């Protein structure tokens, strides 16, 4: 058998046996729902400016308390 013929035979077998499959319709439907619903879940970004202000305020009050006790102690 020539090489071309053997390639043709393999190609025919591949055509016959590698056919598209149908995924479960429920899976397709549910995944679509999950995907398109996921953007409506809003993940709140951390507000760095607010955190910095809070930290500064805490440090300032802390320093003020230390200064107050030292002054009176």
């Amino acid at each position: 058998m020539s090489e071309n013929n053997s390639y043709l035979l393999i190609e025919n077998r591949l055509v016959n046996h590698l056919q598209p499959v149908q995924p479960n319709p429920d899976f397709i439907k549910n995944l679509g729902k999950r995907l398109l619903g996921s953007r409506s879940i809003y993940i709140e970004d951390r507000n760095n400016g607010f955190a910095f202000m809070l930290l500064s305020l805490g440090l300032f009050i802390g320093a003020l308390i230390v200064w107050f006790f030292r002054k009176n102690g």
Partner: protein
Amino acid sequence: MTDQVDDIQLIEKAANGDNEAFGFLYERYVRKIYNYIYYRTGNVNDAEDLTAKVFHRAFRHIETYSQRGVPFSAWLYRIAHNLVANWYRDRSRKKEVALDDQLPSSFHFDFPEFALEKSQESERMIKTLRKLPPERQQLIILKFVEGMSNAEIGLIMRKSEGAIKSLYHRTLDSLRKEIEKLEHPPKGKGRKIKEDKDKNE
């Protein structure tokens, strides 16, 4: 070409937060991506799991797509290919064996004997295919399951059309050798099995 134009419009809308546009893209490609992953992994559960991951990743990174200069489908197939590669790597670490090596539903026929014969042959073919290196499996699946041209496959696999053609011939050659090995095992081995059988009797 119309699909391509449509894709671009839908991607732009999806990147601007239009969920419905992404929904159209999802409906257009989910079955193709599922098929690709199904034939690479050989089982329904992993195919569903990985298909979900592909679309979650595409959904999260849709804004980055436009800069890549490849069709949207090619981008999805590349994501799928990478996820399948990771899946194989993790699987080889865990040494797991797929339990549900099911055959596609389209292999079921009305004539039981023909169906059995055909499904056994299909199983052999798929097993032979999985013995090939990942790149060659990808090429065969894209060509025969997805019905793509060499040029389209080239875009996905980042190779020229000529390189795909040449890889295709080498792949057919390896498949032919594997099938021959499977269907006509070396005579020595067959004789040994027969001798063992005679001994037992």
